[in-house]
């Protein structure tokens, strides 16, 4: 039992339930089979990807760079909320939040570079 199989298996179970609906019941429209198909597709593809990319196993032991703080992420979160709210309150807020988002993304890039450097030094 490995994560890819659990994920794909869950999707397959959804496919079976959906198939029962398609074969034995009049589902009255495309929505029901579409949702079952969508869930099955997402989970089976996710399971397959994990299996093919060998990401479905627990990572080996050892030290990892782990950020303690990420002010840029918090900043980005607030910026995105303001950006969305700007859709309602007006372009002035969209402009401000857009600028804030750019600063946030820049901060994130800076944090990730620092993290990579720290990992290289640790190695």
């Amino acid at each position, binding site marked *: 039992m490995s*994560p890819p199989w659990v994920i794909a298996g869950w999707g397959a179970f959804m496919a079976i339930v959906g198939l029962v609906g398609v074969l034995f019941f009049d589902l009255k429209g495309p929505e029901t089979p579409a949702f079952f198909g969508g869930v099955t597709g997402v989970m089976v593809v996710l399971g397959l990807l994990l299996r093919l990319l060998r990401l479905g196993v627990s990572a080996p032991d050892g*030290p990892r760079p*782990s*950020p303690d703080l990420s002010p840029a992420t918090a900043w980005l*979160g607030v910026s995105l909320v303001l950006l969305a709210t700007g859709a309602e309150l007006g372009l002035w807020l969209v402009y401000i939040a857009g600028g804030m988002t750019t600063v946030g993304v820049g901060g994130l890039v800076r944090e990730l570079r620092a993290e990579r450097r720290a990992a290289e030094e640790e190695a």
Partner: protein
Amino acid sequence: MTMAVAVPRRRGTVLDYVASTDHKRIGLATLGTALTFFFLAGALALLMRTELAHSGMQIVSKGAYNELFTVHGSTMFFLFAAPAALGVGLYFVPLQVGAADLVWPRLPLLGYWLFLGGGVVLWSGFLTEQGAADFGWFAFYPLSDSVNAPGTGADFWVLGVGLSQLGVLLMGISLLATIIRRRAPGMTLLRMPLFTWSEVATIFMVVTSFPVVLVAMVLLYVDRQGVHIFSEPGGAITWQHLFWFYAHPLVYVVFFPLVGAVGEVIATFSRRRFFGYSVTVLSLLAFAALSTSVWGHHMFTTQAVSNRFFSLTSTAIAVPAGIEYFAFIATMWGGRIRLGVPMLFALGFVLLFLIGGLSGIFVASPPLDYHVHDSYVVVAHFHYTLFGGTVFGLFTAIYYWFPKVTGRLLGETLGRWHAGLMFAGGLLTFIPMFFLGEEGMPRQVADYAPFHHWDTLNLLATIGAWTIFASLAVFLVNLFRSLLGGEPAGRDPWEGQTLEWVADSPPPRHNFDALPRVRSYAPLLDLRQRERA
């Protein structure tokens, strides 16, 4: 064991609280914010119940009442229950699987800010000229279109729901990646604690259904700007499909992790290994899959779905639910049960959720659903699942894990008062609603005519609601007393069975200095049994 690179940590700054990537801090922030929204939504419920205590309008206008039940329901689902269920997971799943941290820790941090921001935006509707959204938490179209619900408050509702649920989705993705990638050596899937498995099942529902609500909210927002999307023929039914495909799994998302927590508390307080672990894990996964297959039962009366098919899937849920109940009872059977406060809440969960579950089987039958649709029977049913499942489950988790989080025990006497009052309040509030609904009282009404003779039952429900409020006041007193001067808990006050009880209380940044060998889903119980042998 996994280890994080040691980075000198600054303590006590504002940044530590708003920008920490430590899973424990994000989990606590999420849980604390969700509980704040719970109290706010509870205050709205008290207002509604007080208004309904007698026939005639006493406290609020009918328009304000519509806003109250919309924001109450929306807050309880979107801003309390779902984030709380994931918040507990953010704190404890890494500890339970022996990980030092989350995978992609920035993702849940971003998720937290989107959730908080979404909540603030949603509640800001009360500050707008036309008030908050007033179309119910399910925003049925055309009630939610720009003609019937004009104004900024309704738009804020759409934006708030979208932002907050995107936040919860990000938390879920990071948690799932952590469970897949950061398990300690020896922690195979079938050695993961039940709570972690219940989070896995929850996240499967989150990753498949939450993207749908994001799409739905974008489409509704665009529609409200004058673009015809749901106003096309069949659009109202399409809205219901989109909304319920998300919202029915949501109902399970909000209590599923707590099923796992209750299972662990029952095992720990029965001083036994959890009975039927493998079958329960399978039943959790099947439960989650079936709950993603039943959204159409909310649409029986539209006649736009196959009632027979959705009745079949809805009734089939009784099978995995029955397996879990059987496992709970079998774990207690023959155990040396300690009736500590966490166990009292767990038993409350089992009993109250049973009422919600059994009434769910009735309303899964289309003829009976036609009879009680949009009546207070449905209100009673889902409040037993949510109050019995989510609220009792969450307090089970809080009393059980509070010592781990704070290093202090919550007061036992006040805890018992809390459990007793809350249980009595839950019965007194929601049992009368079954009778009211059976007598024909519709849901979401601000008033009823005196000739219906519904006053007594409504008054009982209102007294029950205030009893629940009293129990929560007791909890708050207990919480602050314990935080300020509670009894030290040590690492493992309950003789727990899972890895989090190895860590210090509260756990340090990197969680563990060393881990025991993991040979089963109850590694600490294994250790104790070997020491005794």
